[in-house]
């Protein structure tokens, strides 16, 4: 099959937080497009990898950015010695051969680019390629998944209402402390006690969300810290390097966070 390179070879580790796996499977049963919303570092990408493996579908990921054009998604003619050759974009590949197409951070792309997905997200499930004069009907296994961080919206970048309403939403947040400690322990190789302390520290930082910090520490940051500890660094130093320093440049906030971290240890 054409998309072998995109298949997930081994099971990615993912610990369900709530009923999101069942929810996605139900959506996939009807091939409904899904929107994953949540702050950074919460497991959205890992989740979709896990589901792709579980459902045995290839996964084509596109990281959206502001310079992305519709042609980057759909495809374009390229010039070859024998003439012009049409080259399918990642979206078209997924549509044609039945993969899950995952558009990550879709809000970063301009709105005239994102409208290209509209015909795929309603009952038509078609992808018109005007330049090629072809109407691609979606493979029965094709599904579209997008993700974005709702907290970072400015007045300028936001999904259009018409786009938002085509999707089924799954909310991602920080897992419950025990579950999060388990995840951190598994992913970083640190022991349970250290993982639990790291989660504690993260909770302190999340208390400051909106009170001096944009976002609290993400699970990913904790995994980094855990990896540093597993490599031999002390917990305080590891927290400072992977949590306090990256999360804010404000000296007052750093001081307060350092004190809070010290209180937890």
């Amino acid at each position, binding site marked *: 099959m054409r998309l072998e390179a995109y298949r997930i070879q081994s099971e990615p580790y993912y610990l369900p937080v709530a009923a999101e796996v069942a929810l996605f499977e139900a959506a996939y049963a009807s091939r409904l497009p899904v929107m994953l919303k949540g702050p950074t570092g919460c497991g959205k990408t890992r989740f979709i990898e896990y589901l792709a493996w579980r459902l045995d579908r290839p996964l084509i990921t596109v990281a959206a950015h502001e310079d992305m054009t519709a042609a980057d998604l759909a495809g374009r003619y390229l010039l070859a010695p024998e003439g012009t050759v049409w080259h399918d974009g990642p979206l078209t590949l997924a549509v044609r051969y039945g993969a899950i197409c995952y558009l990550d951070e879709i809000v970063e792309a301009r709105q005239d680019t994102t409208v290209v997905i509209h015909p795929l997200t309603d009952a038509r499930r078609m992808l018109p390629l005007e330049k090629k004069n072809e109407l691609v009907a979606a493979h029965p296994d094709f599904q579209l998944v997008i993700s974005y961080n709702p907290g970072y919206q400015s007045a300028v970048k936001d999904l259009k209402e018409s786009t938002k309403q085509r999707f089924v939403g799954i909310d991602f947040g920080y897992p419950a402390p025990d579950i999060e400690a388990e995840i951190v322990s598994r992913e970083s190789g640190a022991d349970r006690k250290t993982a639990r302390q790291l989660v504690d520290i993260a909770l*302190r930082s999340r208390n400051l969300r909106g*009170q001096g910090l944009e976002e609290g520490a993400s699970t990913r940051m904790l995994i980094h810290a855990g990896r540093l500890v597993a490599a031999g660094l002390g917990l305080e130093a590891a927290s400072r390097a992977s949590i306090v320093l990256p999360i804010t440049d404000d000296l007052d906030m750093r001081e307060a966070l350092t004190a809070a971290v010290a209180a937890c240890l």
Partner: protein
Amino acid sequence: MTPRSRAQFQVIETEQGRAVTRLHQLIRQRDTLRGEFRGHWDAISAGTDDADLERWAAGALELALVNAGPECQLAFWRISVDLKSALQLRELADFAHAAADICRGAGSKATLACLQALPNALRRLGRASEIVLWSRGLVRLAREGPESVAAVACRTDMILQACDSSGFENFVASGLKYTRGDRVRRRAFFTLEDRLATQVLEQSAGALIFSRNERVLKAFATALWGRPPVLRGAIAPPGMQLPRRVNIAGGVVRMPPVFSGTPKGMLPQLFRACVAHATAHIALTRTRFPIGSLKPLQMALIGLVEDARVEMLAMRAFPGLRRLWAPFHVAEPTEVITAPTLLARLARALFDPDYADPDGFIKKGRALFAAERERLDDVSVSRQIGGLLGNDLGQMRVQFNARTYVVEPVYRDDGLGLWDFGEQAQAETDIFELMVDAARFERRDDADNPDRRRNEVEPAPDAVGRARERAPDERGPVLATYPEWDCDAGIERPDWTTVRAASLWPGDAGAIDAALDNIPALRARIRRLVRGAKIGRHERLKRRSDGPDLDLDAALDAAVALRAAELPDDRVFRTMARRQRDLSVMILLDTSESTRDPVMPSGTSVLDVERLAVAALAEALAALNDPFALRAFASAGREDVRVFCLKDFGEPYGAAVKARLAHLEPQLSTRLGTALRHAGTEIAYVRSHRKLILVLTDGEPSDIDVVDPRDLVEDARRAVISLRERGTDVFGVTLDPSGAGSGAAVFGRSQHMPVRRLEDLPSRLAELYFRLARR
């Protein structure tokens, strides 16, 4: 547009263009000064532009005309030369005007002392804006306590070591208040001989240290418990006992201003320990105990056990707090048995399992506490254990003086927040009288209104000052006259309205900051918008006929067209353009009488909400470095359309602007058309690609001498059109809950934003600006 619509200036009194000449003329007549002046003048005027020189000369002139004497003038010139690099001439001129005021009130000797103190003050305070506040304090003292000015000026170094400029104003205000009318006492106060004076300074110093740490402490407590604490520095009026321990009342944590006995290096950790302990109480001490028939000693012990209980629970959640609190437990076993020492040792014994103490009472206390280890969640544990121990101690006949008792260790609170004083407080608590009254007073203070804004408490210090008129007409100097449209006659009447400058006494800038602190979400949002806008978006311009880069899609289209034997489009390049921000904004604020109306049950008026919205927007504009000006307007008939200048284009946005904004009062009526024309004239002088006038009004244009309001609506509409024709955008934001206003008629539907819910105004105004600025 017809020539009649061009504004004609009718300037009555100004010293522009003449101060320098007059100064020179004056000095020429003074033999003693002539020689010195030349040298100083050359030094000052070197490399200075005319406007600044004018202002400086005006200041020096006033100082001369007020008969300050040759020494003062010489001193001023000398200082101007010395400080020319540190202070701008404008700021020196302002100080000269202040010095002239001081001379009027306190005489030339005092003025000389103040002038000589300026370099010291600048060294201590560092910034010109602080000097303004400092000189304001001196001016007030000159007016109300003239005999003390020289003394204060001579001690500038000592005083400003303890406090900053607003602390200094506070110092002057307190001194005047507490020695009211008594000259001798006043002198004693301001020469720092009076103990009260040193107390006030100490408190200021302490308050300063606290205010520097406040943000970190708040964030620390929020991180631990999830709730932002309400922290205040406790200020006791001199004469009353200074609080020596943290007090918790009604959810408010009051930090004492001074912790004498703690070395300065330990202060940050002490503050953190205090805050951690106090907020632990707030989180974990859920109920208050009724006093009932308890004796003071029992109350003290119950408080002690409760402290230990709360700390034990807190340390279970946050083990690191032990390291924070441990250094302050310094009690050791001694021979001397007094209640305070025993209590301090008991506190340590309950806190630190490794602390050895042979005393039987301590051992018993430990045993009782340890027995309840599983039940620590239950607040009644403290009551039981404390009551028992209190009885024991009472029977041991140990000396206990409730009046002088102070909780140890130093970071713990005074324990008064634990008790429910109730009705029968009077009968039982004469021993705790002093402290109880203080707690009651403070609790009443805060229980009603914990978020009471500062501007309701402090009147502006200068609000009752003498009015200093600069123009003979009490209505304020005329700035310009404008035509106005007469609906019935169908013509524009030239020179129909007169715009006058109105002065604004500065209010309390802190009130603006406090109000902005109450809307952190909006502020954060605005900061994000600023960040996004500031980056000055790089725009990719595609399909250009020229550029450094190939536009791939266009190039492919062209190649395809070539192969298909069609004519290719040769615009196959792309280039980047950075959109520059070149926009200046004038915000025009309507302060007519109708803005006094209350918006919400709490009594916030329309003007308060407008003020907040403007402050939030001004913050964003300052961060973006877009040049902007703030004006407010109110009218009393066509002869008196008052324009208040809150901020000029060149002026930096800071405490002075906030102070003026804070002091705006609702008054008079809304003659919108004239205000718009004047704003247009003023903004015409600014050089920028785009000019925007943003009008914020709550009602219909109207005025006392116009019968049919439609006249003024039509006039305003014409003003807007004429401004647009001259290239200035006008956008109107109207507060229009009913949706039936004439905003659309005046501004045009696309250039008008009606705001239905007043509470939304701050966020909508900020977003509007970003939308407009993007175009």
